[in-house]
């Protein structure tokens, strides 16, 4: 007996040691990583930034379990997000301004196979990486999430209860995922966040789950994003097989040597252009560019705070972040193939979306198309090596587009879901809407690129670079630049089309379909009583519901932020604050380095001398004469005037068509012009029939094929299966009257006979 016991004891002990060994190793490993990358005591604080919203999501879930009916979930969310914002701010202020900070929380995925050499170990920690780029993103993500959460506390008040909890749960989870995406220290963390924000986007677009359009829109967003995500996933895997690591610092170090992990020269590989193109595919999916843009306009079915936060300010810029973050890889290709595609993809999308926005009547959809268009600007900026401009535009756009969306949301909230610009006019004179109108004006000026607004500066930084970067570096960059300049004019027009029609002019409004939302507070103190409604049957007793303190406060804060963001252009050492942040991140690259490569390949080395590091700086242009020009002028100096003129023309056209001399909500002048432009106007209004086209080439064939397969499955596959099942069934049915007597002995005898037959058969077979 003792022998056996001893053996068991020994086995248990061995197993325990076998388990303990890797654990000890891992612990030591984590320690080595943490120490090696100089994690500071502030690391714990930074780790809290994503964990606070995650905790918030759980907390809101607990509220939901207790069926909390008050606004507590909203205020808890806002409080936690505000703390996360303050922590981000502390991190930013405590950052030395150039070295990345790395915090490794724990080992996440650690694999080793083969001999464990290069390309045979995968070590992805649950770790964060802070450099200028992630900090810039985190500042506006947490800041805007806090403000928009506060806005939503009022906007979603009609759903207080479980719907409220569902909303804020997904809201918190979104901020957590976005933080993982932006702060992740390897491509796998980024992918985790990338899928997380996609999920939250899906959940929140389909928030009004009883509305078919909303559910369909959520599904569309999810499916379209899957296609892009496939590119990102393949790109990530290729990155690993090529460079042997997914961790940013190691990855960039390998790329910096100009060779793959196995030591082959990078220029000679096909991966050098394939990986950026695949990553770009992911970015284009998430950021609604080129063929993938169709999901974003439909995503406007979600609640407006969601449109503002996820589908305008933060999530859709994840693609821009990805390209900026992986910039070393994009510029490693001496021919800059992927960047040329990014440039043209952005430019075409920006123009395309702007043309659609011009003919839409739903103000939220106009803002949705405008977001697509502005994202096109950002990609265009990255493509023409104006990284600073692109990133700065992300930052300014986050503020002014959130302002625009939230103003539209306030209108929607106040007019029972009315979004049709033909049915709203003169809100300036409706009591209680002054702040909304002013916020909207500030947002519109930014979007239109009105001089000295933040949007004006960030757009200039991008546009000027289109001519500075020569056509031979980025294929046809100046031509794309002309397209973007035209788009700037269209943007100014459609932006002020909304403003002149809805927010100023004669007072006229018709409520939307959501009158039930309005019933409980229809006779509140702060409602308008004397507005000049017209013949709608609701109109007799409809009073616009003016926004209360939370919405107004947030609008003031965001409009103020949009204005102040312009000031960031004038601070810092590298062409604005955004330039400083980009300079201290992986998005920064040495233009001379690209010059060398280009010189070797295309002989245009000096043409890009004024590349990224001089992006958009008029004064720096003086000392670097050898760059491209626009009509013989220095783009760094004259783009300010050119784009201002373009903006004024756009606003002027909108003024003439939609405001001057208008006495009713309808605009006869614009309508007659639209009629004169038929059928182009209808095509644009119907979004150039792209959805119908996709339906025709993708959805319909899939449906036909699935129906064919369905019938094949039903007739052939099921037929064969049922044939096998049918034979015993039919035979037993024919035999049952004779055999199913119910007498115990009959059954017993037959069983014995059956066993006997089996035994005899077995015996015959065996012997």
């Amino acid at each position, binding site marked *: *007996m003792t*022998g056996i016991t001893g053996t068991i004891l020994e086995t248990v002990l061995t197993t325990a040691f076998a388990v303990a060994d890797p654990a000890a190793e891992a612990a030591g490993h984590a320690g080595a990583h943490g120490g090696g990358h100089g994690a500071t005591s502030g690391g714990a604080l930074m780790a809290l930034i994503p964990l606070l919203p995650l905790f918030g999501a759980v907390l809101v879930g607990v509220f939901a379990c207790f069926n909390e009916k008050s606004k507590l979930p909203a205020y808890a969310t806002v409080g936690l997000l505000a703390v996360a914002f303050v922590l981000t701010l502390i991190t930013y202020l405590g950052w030395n301004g150039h070295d990345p900070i790395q915090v490794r929380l724990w080992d996440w995925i650690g694999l080793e196979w083969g001999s464990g050499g290069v390309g045979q170990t995968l070590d992805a920690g649950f770790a964060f990486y802070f450099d200028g780029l992630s900090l810039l993103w985190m500042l506006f993500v947490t800041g805007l999430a806090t403000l928009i959460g506060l806005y939503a506390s009022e906007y979603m008040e009609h759903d207080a209860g479980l719907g409220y909890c569902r909303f804020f749960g997904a809201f918190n989870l979104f901020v957590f995922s976005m933080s993982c995406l932006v702060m992740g220290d390897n491509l796998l963390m980024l992918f985790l966040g990338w899928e997380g924000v996609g999920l939250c986007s899906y959940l929140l677009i389909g928030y009004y789950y009883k509305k078919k359009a909303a559910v369909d829109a959520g599904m569309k967003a999810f499916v379209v994003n899957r296609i892009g995500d496939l590119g990102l996933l393949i790109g990530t895997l290729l990155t690993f097989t090529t460079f042997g690591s997914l961790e940013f610092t190691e990855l960039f170090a390998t790329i910096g040597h100009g060779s793959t992990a196995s030591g082959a020269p990078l220029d000679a590989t096909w991966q050098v252009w394939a990986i950026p193109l695949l990553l770009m595919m992911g970015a284009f999916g998430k950021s609604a560019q080129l063929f993938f843009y169709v999901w974003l306009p439909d995503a406007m079915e979600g609640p407006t705070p969601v449109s503002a936060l996820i589908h305008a300010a933060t999530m859709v810029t994840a693609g821009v972040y990805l390209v900026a973050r992986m910039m070393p890889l994009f510029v490693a290709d001496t021919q800059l193939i992927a960047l040329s595609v990014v440039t043209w993809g952005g430019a075409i999308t920006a123009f395309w979306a702007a043309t659609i926005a011009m003919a839409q009547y739903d103000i939220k959809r106009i803002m949705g198309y405008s977001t697509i268009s502005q994202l096109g600007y950002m990609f265009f900026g990255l493509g023409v090596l104006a990284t600073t401009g692109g990133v700065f535009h992300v930052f300014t756009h986050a503020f002014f587009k959130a302002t625009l969306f939230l103003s539209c949301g306030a209108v929607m909230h106040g007019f029972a879901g009315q979004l049709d610009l033909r049915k709203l006019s003169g809100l300036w004179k409706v009591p209680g809407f002054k702040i909304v109108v002013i916020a909207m004006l500030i947002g519109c000026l930014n979007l239109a690129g009105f001089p000295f607004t933040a949007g004006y500066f960030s757009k200039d930084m991008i546009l000027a670079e289109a001519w500075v970067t020569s056509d031979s570096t980025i294929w046809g960059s100046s031509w794309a630049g002309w397209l973007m300049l035209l788009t700037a004019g269209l943007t100014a027009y459609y932006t002020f089309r909304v403003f002149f029609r809805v927010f100023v002019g004669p007072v006229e409004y018709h409520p939307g379909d959501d009158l039930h939302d309005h019933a409980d507070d229809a006779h509140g103190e702060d409602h308008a009583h004397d507005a000049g409604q017209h013949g709608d049957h609701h109109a007799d007793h409809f009073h616009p519901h003016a926004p209360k303190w939370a919405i107004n406060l947030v609008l003031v804060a965001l409009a103020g932020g949009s204005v102040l963001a312009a000031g960031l252009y004038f601070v810092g050492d590298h062409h604005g604050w955004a330039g400083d942040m980009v300079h201290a991140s992986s998005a920064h690259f040495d233009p001379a380095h690209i010059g060398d490569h280009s010189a070797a390949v295309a002989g245009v080395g000096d043409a890009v001398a004024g590349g990224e590091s001089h992006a958009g700086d008029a004064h720096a242009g003086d000392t670097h004469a050898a760059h491209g020009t626009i009509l013989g002028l220095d783009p760094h100096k004259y783009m300010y005037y050119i784009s201002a003129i373009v903006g004024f023309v756009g606003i002027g056209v909108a003024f003439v068509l939609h405001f001057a001399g208008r006495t009713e909500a309808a605009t006869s002048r614009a309508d007659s012009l639209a009629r004169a432009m038929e059928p182009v106007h209808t095509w644009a209004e119907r979004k150039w029939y792209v959805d119908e086209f996709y339906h025709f080439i993708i959805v319909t064939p899939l449906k036909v094929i699935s129906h064919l397969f369905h019938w094949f499955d039903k007739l052939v596959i099921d037929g064969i299966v049922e044939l096998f099942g049918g034979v015993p069934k039919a035979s037993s049915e024919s035999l*049952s009257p004779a055999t*199913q*007597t*119910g*007498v*115990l*002995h009959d059954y*017993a*005898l037959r069983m*014995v006979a059956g066993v006997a037959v089996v035994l005899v058969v077995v015996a015959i077979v065996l012997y």
Partner: protein
Amino acid sequence: MIDTVLSGMSSLPSMTLVPSLAQTAFPDAMASSTLNHYLFVSAVMFALGLIGFVTRRNLIIMFLCTELMFQAAGLAMIAFGRYHMNFDGQTFVIFVLTIAAAEAAMALALVVLLFRKRESLDANLWAELKG
């Protein structure tokens, strides 16, 4: 004792029906009986049980016949277990005995209930469940 048994395992003739090891371990008890004897008894018991079950109509007798088949199977298992010097057979039979005891209690209770319904133990009176 276990050590003795285990060490004896290697000297066990592989295909013989005579358990020579058992003879060394328990010289008196197993001296004259071989595996075949046990299996023969087991088969006879099983056949008796089976025939009884199929031919008799009395519920109690039928039940006793099933018990007989049970024990026949148990006997075979113990005999094989002993022959292979493996205790699984005995262990299993102890479980079977336990469960058979519980099952007997239930079966007899059922028989009592059936008897109360029809005032008879004839199994053929119960033939409603057809098909």
